[in-house]
């Protein structure tokens, strides 16, 4: 369900319409400019005995539309209580109760702008391994900081990670379409999500020089995010897509902040996207998520906010193509999700890492 400019009352009414009874669990994806007092929302939902998790995103997706003032409400089937954590110790304390449970999927909402985001994913992978599939998105506000961005029945949190374990049959895929443009560069100095040096020189200077030489762009610290959005970094991985790292900020020292960690001494390329790549994404993704069924699956997608900024009009086309492709296969299925700060996806094979500039799509049957 999608509500534009929601109030607490309209949300409670909406829940009634969805026939959400006491003890039904649901997911709230909230656009960052919704004028909602999250603490009051949590109190009201607790009063009404609803079980929920939620996150604030730059924008929410409903069918082929995006909005930063809307809210998506989705019913979900949770076997166990969600876990909120901000350290490995906190996770382990709570996960100890769930060791014996069998899950197919760990639905994860993570503070995408936190330097701890990659560590939290490592924590999840350390203790869950590839026995479950991971799916989710990075929450956060682009315009305001230190605001509540994650919510559970326990309250509103400014940072951290929420993970819920699902037992349903899920199919997921992830794509970004980015290809190498220039490189390689060696990250000779980095600290978590901050690149300090590339090829033993100041990171910003190297990046600036590269964009000048290859794209004839005069990059400055002031116009950095306007251009960097189109030229992300890619960490090379064998036999899989690049892990994209979005350079979203540059500090006075010329250090570039990315969404997600960049290991020191790793090899990165500067990426660009080709139009042809984009056109094929929707078809491939939907087809990878298909299961022969008479029912209607629940569809959730997270697409990177920087992808929207980069693609602009092309993003609308991409979203429409995905929505159309989904409706073609499942006419009653509504594509819902959010524009996120970092995406989470692991099919059960390979190493779990925070993705950037990607689309992740999950269908729960």
């Amino acid at each position, binding site marked *: 369900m999608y509500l534009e400019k929601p109030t607490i009352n309209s949300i409670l009414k909406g829940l009634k319409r969805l026939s959400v009874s006491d003890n039904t669990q649901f997911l709230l994806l909230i656009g960052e400019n919704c004028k909602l007092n999250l603490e009051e929302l949590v109190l009201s939902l607790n009063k009404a005995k609803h079980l929920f998790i939620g996150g604030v995103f730059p924008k929410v997706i409903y069918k082929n539309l995006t909005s930063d003032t809307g809210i998506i409400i989705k019913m979900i089937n949770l076997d166990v209580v969600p876990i909120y954590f901000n350290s490995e110790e906190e996770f382990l304390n709570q996960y100890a109760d769930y060791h014996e449970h069998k899950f197919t999927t760990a639905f994860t909402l993570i503070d995408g702008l936190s330097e701890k985001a990659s560590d939290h994913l490592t924590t999840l992978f350390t203790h869950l*391994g590839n026995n479950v599939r991971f799916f989710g998105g990075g929450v956060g506000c682009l315009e305001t900081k230190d605001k509540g961005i994650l919510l559970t029945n326990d309250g509103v949190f400014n940072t951290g990670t929420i993970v819920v374990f699902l037992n349903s049959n899920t199919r997921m895929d992830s794509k970004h379409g980015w290809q190498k443009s220039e490189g390689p560069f060696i990250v000779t100095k980095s600290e978590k999500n901050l690149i300090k040096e590339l090829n033993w020189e100041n990171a910003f200077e190297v990046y600036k020089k590269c964009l000048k030489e290859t794209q004839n762009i005069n990059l400055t610290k002031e116009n950095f995010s306007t251009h960097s959005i189109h030229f992300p970094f890619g960490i*090379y991985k064998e036999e899989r897509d690049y892990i994209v790292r979005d350079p979203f900020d540059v500090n006075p020292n010329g250090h570039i902040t990315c969404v997600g960690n960049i290991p020191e001494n790793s090899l990165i390329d500067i990426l660009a996207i080709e139009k042809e790549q984009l056109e094929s994404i929707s078809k491939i993704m939907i087809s990878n998520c298909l299961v022969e069924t008479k029912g209607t699956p629940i569809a959730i997608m997270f697409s990177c906010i920087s992808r929207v900024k980069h693609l602009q009009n092309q993003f609308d086309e991409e979203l429409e193509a995905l929505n159309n492709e989904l409706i073609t296969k499942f006419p009653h299925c509504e594509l819902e999700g959010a524009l996120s700060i970092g995406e989470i996806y692991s099919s059960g094979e390979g190493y779990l890492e925070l993705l950037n500039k990607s689309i992740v799509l999950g269908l729960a049957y």
Partner: protein
Amino acid sequence: MNTNSLITDISFLYELSLSVGQSLDRKENCKNFLQTLMSRKNLEFGGVWIRNYSIPYSAKTTGYTVIYSHPQIKLEQTYIEDSNFLNQCFEEKDSFSIPLTMEAREAIGFRKKERGVITCYKLRELGFVVLYSSAQDKLWDEIEQRKLKNVINKFAISIKACLFHEKSILDLITISKTQKELEKAKKEAEESNELKSAFLSNISHEFRTPINAIIGFSNLLKNQDINPIEQKGFIDNILNSSSKLLKMVNNLLYVSKIDSNQLNYTLKTFKINETLRDVKAHLNSQLANKPQVNFKLVFPNNSEDVQIESDRDKLIQIMDSLVDNAIKFTNTGNIELGYYIDDKSIPVFYIRDTGIGISKEKQKHIFEVFRQLDYEANRKFEGFGLGLTLCKKLIQLLKGEIWFDSEESVGSNFYFRLSGNGRVQMDLLNDTKPNSNDNLGSINDLDFSEKNILIAEDVRSNFNYLNAIIELTDASVVWAKNGKDAIQICRDNNPKIDLVLMDIRMPEIDGMEAIKQIKDTNKSIPVIVQTAYAMNNEREECLHAGADNFITKPIDPRKLIQILQEYLQ
């Protein structure tokens, strides 16, 4: 191979090489290396197995232990035995890549349900690395395996450095710990030496004092001119000193015998109250020297016939020693010797005093051999610090236990019980029949608090002794140090004197003359002569002078009490 893929490979090896040896902590080092490798190769597990004999201070010498694994949940066990499977796989090669069969899973302790492929590298002589992918087709060919060999070797050396570093730290900790223990042992040995020296110097003084008295009085006895009375006095001194000396030697022998398990005990059933009274009787002479100390025997109600099965002599020795200490360390106030019956029907004996107490710091050492709280040169108290050690050892011998509480300047309470064989016969506690045969049993019942007794005695210790006995009756005591004072006090009669205990040999005016003058003034005052001169004619002389009765030294407390009862009640 094209240039791009070559650059990709080199850059990967570069990244991987630089992730090696970033930390001397083995876990951190493994984490940096394996997570880089897993991320780049998109692997789902990486772990490092090290031979147990290479792990510093490992209790195991065979097999391998996993020192790092990520994610941890892939493994069912972190310790594995040496296996033919691994030996065969690594035979003549340093790496292999195989499907994860049941045999392979068991050999490395992997979870049974896992499927996929493992690639393993030997870490020189230290152990091996396992990399896992769930994709069945991810077998690494020879070239792919060979690409990583150099960097894996480098990783092996870094692990060796970590283990060496860890061993050095553990060695240092062990050395420092051993050093501390050695220092402690040295300090204890030095302290024990000091204690022994203090003990020896102490013991030599303690031995020399009675020996000097024995030699001195023995020499005096050689003199033909001394009268029989003096002679007796000298002999008494010799006997006292000998008995003191014997007690010290016995104590030393006891400690030595107990230490060498040569001391036995004889069990018999005996009455507790009677025994405690005997203890008190032994200590009377000491108590006499402490006029400001009030000594009390405290028994449970109806306990007169309560018996215990234990070694009576040793029980007396224990109590002697504890009361001896209480007297020694109490200058004014009270000392109580008594017992109560605990909830397991075992008598718990106690000795309470209001003496100098024991400081917190010294409390933990008081049962140690050779300890006396004041063993320094300026010690104020006699004895050589074996008393409490002996008590504890004797109590342990009798399968009992001793404990205490104490506060400096407030006093000390010592308790002990003799369990097992020392159980009280409880039925006797209910027997309310009083035992009238025991005269001393009634001392505590006497109440002469309204009476004033004059003691005419020039020797302080003798006065103290008499005073201690009389105090048991709660009577007030007035001391006259010579005959003249005694006459004056009786003349003044303020306070009213109810009885006079008169010594005969006194300065200024002797006892005989004093009796006459007192009786001239006030015939009704009973005058009891107490003297060491027990010749028959002297008794007659005293009675003739007006004395009412006669008691000879050493004074038997029971006899004195009988006389007091006779004249005061």
